[in-house]
């Protein structure tokens, strides 16, 4: 049973007067879910507690075994760890080992009906990681690889977290604690419950259904599948590049092919992705051309996971906090990065301030608000992208501007930078948007729009000829 209303608003029963809602030696914390949010919360919470000499216990409830191949061991995502997150984790001392990184991504290739262009990092350095959340696709060969989620969970375990392989079915508020109930009817009490169940769980759904005041995150259906092409072919046809498609297909916001070891992951994001949309995507010439002989091979593994498109509210209560996808995340991009940011902010609040609704309101909610506000700008940015998807002349202008920039060495790469950050999720939507208002960006875009659309303009025809540095095809 889940007592959603009382649980989330912290209204009733009132916490025991006089007993401070702070954690002390021996306090127990329940973390529900060991996706990136749950494991990173546990890791940072225990690290911070250690620095101030606080002796606390963390139990992580997670029924999934990340050692399994296929959906059983996987938290279903495209598997891109953004440039900004790779750098922040490295700064924290968390180095993603080679067995976790399936491929370091060096560039993005944008495919449109008017041509393709490869956007390379100026540093020629791999700072984006393509990973598997589980242990690889269904029916894949045993890999000498390691699940990303499994790796983060191991870090939390090394810090002292205990993993309880059970599904949580209920949360109940007691006088001075939270009771966690599991599917096997076992239950235990904790001073703090951290909900990190993502959006594919029934737990947040139940919280939402039973409470008029709690709204669980809004979600939409996406699509992921894996193609087995073999390492050699992938190196030859995809290289260390993530292939992004800007196609005029209604309801499709983002489509990418991501090379990983022997497999390529296809990720389709948008509004309720269904089979009709998937068929339309596969029949696009730009997509078929990516595969040998223009034939799309059968996929070895697929799923329709849901993605958070609007935050839960509220994301905290007394002795309770919702982190990662089950609370607030970034729209369509860098969800793992948002899981890192929200989990760390929640851990800091619990260790250094307290675990009351007031503490989370003061020290945790501002970050969630910042992410939500940025998502509003993101929605606008995606609506502009939809206009571009429909307007061929705009696509020509963008292609022309990006291609020109990629051939120049020392001049600012404004369009490339905007596209890079938009695809990789490395910068906030607000930052991306502000950069598009720069007079030089606007001026250059206008110039390229005119040049590319004049009869005989540089991008009027699709010519698959390599040019300049060999990275631009248009």
């Amino acid at each position, binding site marked *: 049973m889940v007592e959603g209303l009382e649980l989330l608003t912290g209204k009733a029963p009132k916490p025991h007067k006089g007993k401070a809602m702070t954690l002390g030696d021996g306090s127990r914390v329940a973390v529900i879910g060991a996706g990136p949010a749950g494991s990173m919360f546990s890791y940072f919470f225990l690290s*911070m507690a250690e*620095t101030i000499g606080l002796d606390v216990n963390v139990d992580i409830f997670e029924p999934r075994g990340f050692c399994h191949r296929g959906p059983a061991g996987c938290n279903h995502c495209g598997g891109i760890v953004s*440039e*900004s997150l*790779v*750098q*922040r984790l*490295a*700064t*924290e*001392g968390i*180095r*993603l080992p*080679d*067995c976790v*990184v*399936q*491929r*370091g991504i060096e560039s993005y290739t944008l495919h449109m009906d008017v041509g393709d262009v490869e956007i390379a990092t100026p*540093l*020629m*350095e*791999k*700072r984006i*990681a393509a990973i598997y959340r589980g242990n690889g696709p269904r029916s894949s060969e045993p890999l000498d690889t390691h699940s990303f989620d499994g790796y983060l969970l191991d870090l939390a375990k090394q810090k002292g977290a205990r993993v309880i392989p059970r599904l949580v079915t209920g949360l109940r508020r007691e006088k001075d604690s939270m009771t966690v109930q599991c599917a096997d009817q076992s239950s235990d009490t904790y001073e703090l419950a951290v909900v990190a169940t993502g959006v594919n769980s029934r737990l947040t759904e139940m919280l939402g259904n039973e409470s008029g005041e709690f709204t669980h995150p809004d979600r939409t259906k996406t699509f992921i599948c894996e193609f087995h092409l073999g*390492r050699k072919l992938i*190196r030859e046809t995809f290289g*260390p590049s993530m292939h992004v498609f800007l196609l005029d297909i209604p309801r499709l916001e983002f489509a990418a092919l991501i090379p990983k*070891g022997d497999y390529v992951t296809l990720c389709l994001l948008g509004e309720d992705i269904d089979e009709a949309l998937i068929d339309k995507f596969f029949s696009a010439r730009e997509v078929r051309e990516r595969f040998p002989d223009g034939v799309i091979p059968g996929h070895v593994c697929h799923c329709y996971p849901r993605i958070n498109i609007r935050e839960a509210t509220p994301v905290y209560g007394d002795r309770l906090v919702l982190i990662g996808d089950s609370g607030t995340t970034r729209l369509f991009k860098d969800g793992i990065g948002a899981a890192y*940011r929200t989990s*760390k*902010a929640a851990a*800091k609040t619990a260790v250094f301030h307290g675990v009351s609704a007031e503490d989370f309101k003061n020290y945790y909610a501002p*970050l969630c608000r*910042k992410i939500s506000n940025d998502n509003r700008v993101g929605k606008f940015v995606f609506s502009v992208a939809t206009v571009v998807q429909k307007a061929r002349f705009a696509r020509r202008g963008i292609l022309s501007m990006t291609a020109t920039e990629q051939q120049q060495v020392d001049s600012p790469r404004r369009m490339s930078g905007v596209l890079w950050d938009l695809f990789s999720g*490395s910068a906030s939507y607000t930052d991306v948007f502000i950069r598009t208002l720069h007079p030089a960006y606007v001026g250059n875009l206008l110039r390229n729009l005119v040049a590319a659309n004049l009869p005989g303009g540089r991008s009027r025809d699709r010519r698959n000829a390599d040019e300049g540095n060999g990275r631009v095809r248009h």
Partner: protein
Amino acid sequence: MAGLGKEYKSGEVIFRQGDTGSCMFVIQDGEVEAIAESDGREFRLRRMGPNDFFGEMALFEKETRTATIRTTKPTRILSIDKKNFLGGIHEDPSLAFRIVQTMSHRIRDLTDRLARYEQQK
């Protein structure tokens, strides 16, 4: 193909003492040595391995690099740019904790060395 960062051969210089720079580096794999150059002579300050970082002073000040960094074996290194780092610190100051901790170890190490040097004089 797997693995993050940029690959360097053994003996390659990442940056030289006196260079200007705006990023810090984290070693992913391999080893580097920090070298101080004076009057044409080289003094090895320290060796660093996986997960160690160097060049962090460039994130905080505009001065030139204080030492040369050279690989001692094939090494992969990830760069952390100033914008990302300072943006991160702005949102979450604890991001600097590990750097402060390491800098404090380095100051302690240098103080010990200085004390030993004074004794030997």
